[in-house]
């Protein structure tokens, strides 16, 4: 092997994405059927506007806390987010991404620092070219 292993060597180039106007039930169904823990959300020009993750969707699974208990800021924010019904309302933004030439150790560092399981891979022209998950990165230890 020549040079360090980079994201392009390990990523999945199947691109599954959402739009900000999609419904959350549709997003949950897509996540369950693909087994992907996070999906990129693209705008009209094909740029990655954010990422919707399982953690974002679980806000909807939790029952909303009664209004009078919403004293702390985080509780208030959680409740405010619960009001959203579209992907754009719950997605995390800006998106934390990887480039095809990001090295595997650097991508792992980014995942750990941000507590993410999957990163969209975006090329220099801003095009979404794939995604890379924790398991993809761990493949470097298994040899090929």
């Amino acid at each position, binding site marked *: 092997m020549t040079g360090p292993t980079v994201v392009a060597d390990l990523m999945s180039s199947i691109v599954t994405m959402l739009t900000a106007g999609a419904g*959350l039930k549709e997003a949950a169904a897509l*996540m369950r059927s693909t087994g992907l*823990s996070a999906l990129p959300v693209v705008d009209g020009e094909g740029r990655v506007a954010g990422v919707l993750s399982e953690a974002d969707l*679980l806000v909807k699974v939790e*029952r909303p806390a009664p209004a009078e208990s919403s004293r702390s800021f985080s509780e208030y924010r959680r409740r405010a987010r619960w009001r*959203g019904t579209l992907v754009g309302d719950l997605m995390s933004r800006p998106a934390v991404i990887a480039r095809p030439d990001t090295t595997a150790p650097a991508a792992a560092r980014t995942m750990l620092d941000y507590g993410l399981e999957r990163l969209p891979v975006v090329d220099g022209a801003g095009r979404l070219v794939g995604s890379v998950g924790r398991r993809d990165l*761990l493949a470097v230890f298994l040899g090929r």
Partner: protein
Amino acid sequence: MRALTLVRDVMRPPVLVPDGMWFQEIVRRLRVSDAGCAIVVDRLGWPIGALSEEDLLARLADPDRAGEAESAARRATRRRAVAVTARELMSEPLISVAGSLPAAAAASLMRERGVRHLAVLDQEGRPGGLVDRSALLEPLLRPDLAIRQDVEDLLRRLVRERAASVTVDVRDGVVVLVSELQLAGLLEDVEEVEGVIGVRREEPAAADGGRCAS
């Protein structure tokens, strides 16, 4: 109303890893089991901790950038980067729940404790299942028709005979109550129904075409 989705409805059989298993073999076991987390067990099969792909990723990740102050969390990450057995690698605390816990409560517990997995132990305290975040999305997939029936039952209990004047429409988990009544406070009760993604009230269609108010 029908029973809520419980942890036991969505859990999967646990992936078990002996505490002395080596790094590379753990990577392989998680991969073939299609799991993001394993329960680490001692020689007698008792659970002693949880080990996730995140713990394994620490061995790959770039070390600190030069000159940056090293936080305790970073030091722990670095320590794991050179650890080799399951016992040394595990860091996600083993948080266990009963199979009878509602999925919604399990989701809250995960968020509060900052974990992505929960172990389900049997009556003897041995691993009986594992739930991840993906499994807990299941309640969001409830069919609209089932949600509508629950909402209609709820209305009959809360506003009795006036329930007949409320039309319930559910689309992709979003409940629309069409009614002349204000229904104040009621919307929050409807939010509690499993599978509901949002609730709003609309005025019945009038000469002006109807408008949205909630």
